């Protein structure tokens, strides 16, 4: 027993080091003065000059703004469609098209991105020929593509949350005469709200980060941030990308820290409420 516990714990520590060393190296070298990125220039470092350069880079700033707008719309669209699909799969029992819906919501998760990207572009080209819309590729086609692959993830998150608790609450409300929409708004929605929130964040991250599918459905004037980064790093390392990575890591880390503190606070308040309720009953 001892020996195996020891081995797996060692692997866990090594694995975590493996996961974090590359991220840390980007953070460290973003403060390096040398253009050679991986050679530490001790005389002139740490420096913020790559951050200054980044703030002046109009191409990166413009691409980041486009990516944010696309990710906001795509995540919101994916949450609406994914919640509907998750509800249908978790609550409706057997219905016509169930197997098809289930298959089409899990396949995009594992589908190689080049295939999804190619097929979506060919669809947009065929649609433009048939009905004259969309006129050329760009932000609109990118958003449609992102909604499609992001909704698969939202569906899985919402569905597993709904499957996790039983239907008796909803059935009780129905028995008491609540209409389906009322049941959804007052019971189902509050219950799945955490899943919807994490599904939205997941969809936002996936959309913000996607390169391969986006490259297929993007047009000349619509370079997203990953596309700009990829064209920069394809032929080597550039220090301002390290600065960009550091900023992104900082945002994610502070977001996680805030949500952890908030969840702790909510948990404490819930326990206090329970204690008060128990005391009131005495």
């Amino acid at each position, binding site marked *: 027993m001892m020996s195996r516990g020891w081995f*797996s714990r060692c692997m866990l520590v090594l694995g975590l080091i493996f996961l974090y060393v590359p991220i840390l190296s980007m953070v460290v070298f973003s403060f390096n003065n040398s253009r050679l990125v991986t050679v530490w220039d001790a005389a002139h470092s740490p420096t913020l000059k790559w951050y200054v350069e980044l703030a002046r880079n109009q191409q990166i700033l413009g691409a980041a703004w486009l990516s944010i707008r696309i990710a906001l719309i795509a995540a919101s669209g994916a949450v609406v469609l994914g919640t509907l699909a998750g509800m249908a799969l978790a609550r409706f029992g057997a219905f016509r098209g169930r197997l098809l819906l289930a298959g089409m919501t899990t396949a995009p998760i594992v589908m190689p991105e080049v295939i999804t990207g190619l097929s979506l572009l060919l669809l947009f080209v065929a649609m433009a020929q048939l009905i004259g819309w969309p006129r050329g590729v760009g932000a609109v086609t990118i958003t449609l593509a992102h909604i499609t692959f992001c909704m698969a993830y939202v569906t899985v998150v919402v569905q597993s949350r709904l499957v996790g608790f039983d239907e008796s609450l909803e059935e009780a409300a129905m028995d008491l005469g609540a209409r389906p929409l009322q049941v959804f708004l007052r019971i189902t929605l509050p219950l799945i709200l955490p899943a919807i929130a994490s599904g939205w964040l997941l969809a936002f991250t996936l959309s913000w980060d996607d390169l391969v599918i986006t490259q297929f459905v993007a047009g000349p004037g619509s370079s997203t941030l990953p596309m700009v980064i990829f064209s920069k790093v394809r032929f080597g390392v550039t220090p301002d990308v390290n600065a960009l990575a550091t900023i992104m890591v900082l945002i994610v880390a502070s977001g996680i820290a805030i949500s952890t503190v908030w969840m702790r606070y909510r948990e404490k308040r819930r326990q206090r409420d329970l204690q008060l309720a128990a005391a009131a009953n005495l």
Partner: protein
Amino acid sequence: MAVRLTQAAGRRLVAGIPLVWLLLLFLIPFIIVFRISFSEVRLAIPPYTPLISWHHGTPSLEVHWSAYSFLFTDPLYVSSYLYSLKVAAVSTLFCLLIGYPMAYAIARSNPSTRSVLLMLIVLPFWTSFLLRVYAWIGLLKNNGVINNVLLYLGVIHQPLALLQTDFAVYIGIVYSYLPFMILPLYANLEKHDPALLEAAADLGARPLRAFLAITLPQSLAGIVAGSLLVFIPAVGEYVIPTLLGRTDQLMIGRVLSDEFFENRDWPVASAVAILVLLLLVIPIMLFQRLERRELEAAK
């Protein structure tokens, strides 16, 4: 009765909207890819021959096999197929060998550290995938961090060629997909009953024997789910081999993308996509079955 009717209509709407969306933007696109794979390139917009051609008012079906025969005659394509399968298989194996003990350790840790550990596993996933792959360029290059450290320690005297090798691609894939291996394994291992292992120990089984006889077979579903989550997307991986991999041997995802963007050969790109799909259709269906069973078990 009226309520029943609106309820049925409401249900149809809830299931119908995502169904129609996915039919339009997921299923129909594949039919279009399939159809274009049976045409020929031509200099026009769009750059492929139509499916139906009209001769004096009568339609005739035009089916060309040239894209497929081209793929099977040129050894470049066959070798990138096999290479992609090899890379995906080796990377999946390494993911499993590294991820299994990690998932096991997390599942055996006490509940308060468990949530922290799980967060640490998921956290890199929230930062950009592209930038995490890019970070490995800086670590693996000739004058990169790993070579500099090894040179400084005197382990090597010449920098090792690490970048643009198979090794770099394995590292990149294992690094990027490790969370996808760990999470299903953890979800499986966490449910195991420790009493079984204790009983085995009481009966005199050594830890390794108990692991092989009890834990490993019970975690088979987790192993398969994690492996499929790594293997299927890894076959078509584009970013990792482009940034870290060899230039003399391309993976199939890169071949597809090059056929489309560089050679502007839409039929061949479509045929490559169809052949990759044929290869992956069984693993994908297996994954979906596991996924369904997992959700039904949760009920």
